[in-house]
């Protein structure tokens, strides 16, 4: 119980810290922070799939991009659509897509599953590129951020700080929900399924259904992040649905580490900041990102979060077996 309380306190502190940021940060950095929060959600959703369920997907960008495009198309074509409705439409469409694709792909495991997700991602990419009349093809789509309508009142979120607050509250709440999800029976089922699927099946769990639910859920969360991505930049291009976007999330998750819930959030933070500064210094930043990625995969498979955890343990002198092996997610605190 004590562990849980510190988690809740941690969440509250983070939100409060986030709330004062617009007073401290300049416009440029506030924009960056908004981006970080959105990508943190994207990375968290991917980690639920990879770190918790052990499903390696190379096609997570199809959900992110689908959410992004659906939100953009809905905003353009539906008159007077409010901001949250646009997000909701993106979210619902990705739920359907996630369910259908999951039903088709989850019959396979391991390398085969990874291959199929990549193939489906490129199907989405091909459609987005060729369906010029709807997606804008290579030109992408520009939108104007709609107003936020809460039923009784509506206010504009055109300014950087107001959209930042909206992102902090909504996306932040969804991240907390994802964490809550890992604590529920469903979340634990997924985790145990990864550890010993046969036993779970023997105990009467329908592992295929659980996996499909998780796949749909993580896809929908990625779609939500995608919708916010569109609203943040007020623009969406086909790069949002390309393999590069999958590579980005892989990098974030692996920099942060798959073993803890908060690892990918840290990873998104490091990735975005790194990308911003590295791209100022050199045009070759993707190359450095790739080298960092391969280095992490080979030498630090647990990512930054594992390194932090083992350092913390060394100092606190406690020696529980938490740092043994990557992805001991069941013990991960927030």
């Amino acid at each position, binding site marked *: 119980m004590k562990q849980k309380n510190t988690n809740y306190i941690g969440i509250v502190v983070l939100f409060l810290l986030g709330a004062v940021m617009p007073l401290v940060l300049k416009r440029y950095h506030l924009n960056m922070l908004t981006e970080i929060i959105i990508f943190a959600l994207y990375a968290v959703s991917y980690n639920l799939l*990879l770190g918790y369920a*052990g499903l*390696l997907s*190379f096609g997570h960008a199809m959900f992110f991009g689908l959410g992004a495009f659906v939100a953009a198309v809905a905003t353009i074509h539906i008159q007077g659509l409010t901001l949250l409705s646009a997000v909701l439409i993106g979210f619902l469409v990705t739920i359907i897509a996630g369910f259908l694709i999951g039903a*088709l*792909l989850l*019959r*396979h*495991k*391991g*390398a*085969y599953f*990874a*291959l*199929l997700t*990549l*193939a*489906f991602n*490129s*199907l989405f990419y*091909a*459609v987005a590129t*060729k369906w010029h009349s709807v997606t804008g093809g290579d030109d992408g789509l520009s939108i104007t951020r709609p107003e936020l309508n809460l039923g009784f009142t509506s206010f504009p979120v055109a300014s950087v700080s107001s959209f930042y607050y909206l992102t902090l509250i909504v996306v932040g709440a969804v991240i907390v929900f994802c964490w809550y999800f890992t604590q529920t029976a469903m979340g634990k089922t997924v985790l145990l399924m990864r550890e010993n699927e046969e036993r779970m099946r023997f105990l009467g769990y329908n592992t295929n259904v659980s996996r499909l639910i998780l796949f749909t859920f993580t896809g929908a969360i990625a779609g939500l992040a995608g919708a916010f991505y569109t609203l943040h930049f007020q623009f969406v291009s086909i790069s949002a649905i390309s*393999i590069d976007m999958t*590579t980005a999330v*892989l990098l974030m998750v*692996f920099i942060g580490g798959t073993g803890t819930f908060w690892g990918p959030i840290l990873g998104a933070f490091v990735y975005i900041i790194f990308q911003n500064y590295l791209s100022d210094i050199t045009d*070759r930043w*993707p*190359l450095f*990102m*790739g*080298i960092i*990625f*391969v280095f992490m*995969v*080979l030498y630090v*498979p647990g990512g930054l979060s594992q390194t932090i955890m083992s350092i913390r343990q060394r100092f606190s002198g406690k020696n529980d077996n938490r740092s043994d092996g*990557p992805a001991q997610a069941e013990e991960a605190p927030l």
Partner: protein
Amino acid sequence: MSNFPVFFLHGLAYAGLLFLVSAGLTLVFGMMNVLNFAHAAMYMMGAYFSYSIVLRMTGQIWLSMMLCPLILFVIGALIERFLLRRAHVYGHVQELLLTFGLAYIITELVKWHWGNYPLAVNVTGILNSTVQIFGITYPVYRIFVFLCAVAVGIMMALILYKTRLGIILRAAVNDNEMANTLGVNVPLVFMGVFAFGAALSGFAGVIAGPLLSTYPGMAQDILIDAFVVIVVGGFGSLGGAVIASLLIGELQSFGVLLFPKLSIALVYLLMVAVLIIKPSGLFGEEEE
């Protein structure tokens, strides 16, 4: 349908190229259980090395055809020995991630060195001529591509099923611990197989240069098609790769003729159909 022979031959040429790429992919997967996402990146390296060789040696594509596979054989062996083997310790996911990361790095390096635009490789001599076939005039080079694929396919089948080396390879696949116990140097076999796969992709890259031109997106383009070949043909099946390559090559070719707007989706539709009807692929064995 006066265009029929042209499109048919186009399809054959692309099928040949697809087979060269997917054969290496499926071989490495079948032997080592590693799905090599960097396979197509090595194919691209082959194409770019060939471009540089042809440029310096005034049009000697024959030279590239011999040199590039050798270079990639060495690169493949080094990758297996120093990177893949290390990742193997951490498990399957790590191996896939490693090859994915390598593909990314190779693509960036290629963009850096050769630029982010298409480069043309031209062939000279007899390969640059045309021939009368089925009552049409057709470039020799495309037929040559197809013949190369046939030759490589036959060679692979002969090695795998008619030689002692083939027996060792198949033994290492079937039960590598037992093969190891019986005195087969399994790590060496794996290194050889991976390097051979890389050499094969390098060869395919050389062939692809004059056919499709050389550009940084070529790896991803062929990778997806090769994946579809593997899905349709069945994982790790060489025979399946032959049939699926032909099927997809022709589908690509006639798709452009018959349904210009849908052509890009046809290949994926075939894949989805196979996934629904026979998830293990046309010639694949059931998983587990």
